[in-house]
């Protein structure tokens, strides 16, 4: 059988078998509601609090009560941004974020603009690192919240979060960190990094989809979005998704234990992939920061050709990855992240994103490095943009 290689872990990750095993009893055996007074609720309630403690432990939260379970990273981010902005309206109506945030940050910010809030998007440099001076200048006495991703899910660049939080707190605003791409990949400590709110997702650390968490430092004023029975201390009503939460807790426990070794292994595979491709394919480039990047992220750019046709060609050889090309988006615009780091539209179209995972091996990387040159060559032969001398 043809080798199948999945290198699109930013799109979706498999659930770790140990996670799945931990979840299974909570569907049909231990199905009680954690809010119940009777004994059916006892075990699910314990499992819920145990998972909360695992998330708190993974991110270095002081208390597990600072963890609130949600339906995923997108919901956590929505609660953080809209909930903090609305609850702190008496203090100001200004939000600051960056030009490379995920749509789950950008779109809530845009919806706040319609309600009369002001939003400033701070630029980044050509590696995707936030311009700290521009950030400092953007924060006014009306700024209540600043939202910055710990690491960018597309180009992998890791932000200097500690410096960012120092600037923000000096200016008297709160910091929300979107850690969906980073959490479980690199060590994060909300206390030493001085983070007020942080969004994390279960599936991005080999847990099930449909569950995530928001860390909110004790005393942070947030208005709930989903209201009802008052679960999650009133911040997120709705009967808890116990199997999902148990899965996320187990995923966090595994990430905590294995992150160091796995991160080193992935970073070495990532570098092998990047070096191999840049060496064997002419006019190919790395997007994002050369060293301050997520261990699993290799975002590569190929001149004169378009990313979707690269994905299709790779798929025909059993290799899965993503692209920042417009042709793979729903908006017909290339990735705003690639444009924000200064790429021209036509170059942004030619980007490929490989995100590695636990199942990937050195053999997989070598297979991709061997497959890419011919694929690129074929598409360049079809493209009218390719310089004649390159085709000889």
């Amino acid at each position, binding site marked *: 059988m043809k080798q199948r290689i999945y290198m699109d872990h930013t799109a979706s990750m498999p659930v770790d078998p140990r996670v799945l095993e931990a979840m299974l009893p909570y569907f049909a055996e231990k199905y009680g509601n954690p809010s119940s007074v009777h004994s059916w609720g006892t075990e699910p309630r314990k499992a819920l609090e145990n998972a909360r403690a695992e998330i708190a432990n993974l991110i270095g939260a002081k208390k597990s009560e600072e963890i609130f379970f949600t339906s995923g990273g997108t919901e956590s981010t929505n609660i953080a941004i809209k909930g903090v902005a609305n609850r702190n309206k008496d203090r100001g109506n200004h939000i600051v974020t960056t030009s490379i945030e995920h749509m789950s940050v950008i779109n809530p910010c845009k919806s706040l603009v319609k309600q009369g809030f002001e939003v400033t998007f701070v630029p980044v440099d050509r590696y995707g690192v936030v311009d700290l001076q521009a950030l400092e200048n953007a924060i006014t006495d009306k700024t209540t919240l600043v939202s910055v991703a710990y690491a960018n899910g597309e180009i992998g660049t890791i932000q200097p979060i500690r410096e960012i939080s120092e600037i923000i707190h000096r200016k008297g605003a709160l910091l929300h960190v979107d850690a969906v791409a980073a959490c479980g990949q690199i060590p994060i400590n909300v206390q030493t990094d001085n983070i007020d709110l942080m969004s994390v997702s279960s599936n991005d650390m080999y847990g099930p989809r449909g569950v995530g968490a928001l860390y909110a430092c004790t005393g942070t004023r947030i208005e709930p979005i989903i209201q009802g029975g008052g679960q999650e201390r009133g911040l997120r009503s709705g009967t808890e998704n116990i199997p999902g939460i148990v899965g996320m807790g187990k995923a966090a426990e595994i990430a905590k234990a294995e992150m160091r070794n796995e991160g080193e292994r992935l970073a070495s595979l990532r570098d092998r992939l990047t070096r191999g491709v840049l060496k064997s394919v002419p006019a190919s480039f790395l997007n994002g920061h050369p060293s301050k990047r997520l261990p699993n992220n290799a975002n590569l750019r190929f001149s004169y050709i378009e990313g979707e046709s690269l994905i299709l060609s790779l798929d*025909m050889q059993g290799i899965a990855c993503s692209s920042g090309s*417009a042709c793979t988006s729903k908006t*017909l615009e290339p990735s705003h992240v690639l444009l924000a780091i200064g790429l021209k539209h036509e170059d942004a179209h030619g980007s490929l994103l490989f995100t590695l995972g636990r199942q990937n091996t050195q053999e997989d990387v070598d297979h991709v490095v061997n497959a890419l040159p011919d694929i690129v060559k074929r598409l360049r032969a079809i493209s009218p943009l390719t310089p004649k001398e390159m085709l000889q």
Partner: protein
Amino acid sequence: MYTDKVLDHFRNPRNMGEIPDADGIGTVGNPVCGDLMSIYIKVKDNRIEDIKFKTFGCGAAIATSSMITELAKGKTLDEAMKISRGDVASSLDGLPPIKMHCSNLAADGLHAAIQDYLKKKGAEK
């Protein structure tokens, strides 16, 4: 996402390349939008005797370019002018809705090549 026919034309594009002494060349699209295609035609006795293409773009852009060369080859100029975007899409057993206008430029490219030929021919007289 794509039909088998689209994937077939993407994998094995027909009539790919340039015609160095083309009678007409049509270039449509824009690399900024992610799609750019050039159609080259050779005309004899008012018929498209030869046709080739070069395309920068997604799978749909490459497949529609390939398909238009098959549809147009051997046709009279009048017949070729009548080939529409819809004809190209249906010959490929359909395209995803989002690709219908952005990447389905091949008919425009063919028409531009024919107009280029007619313009050059008019100038010769």
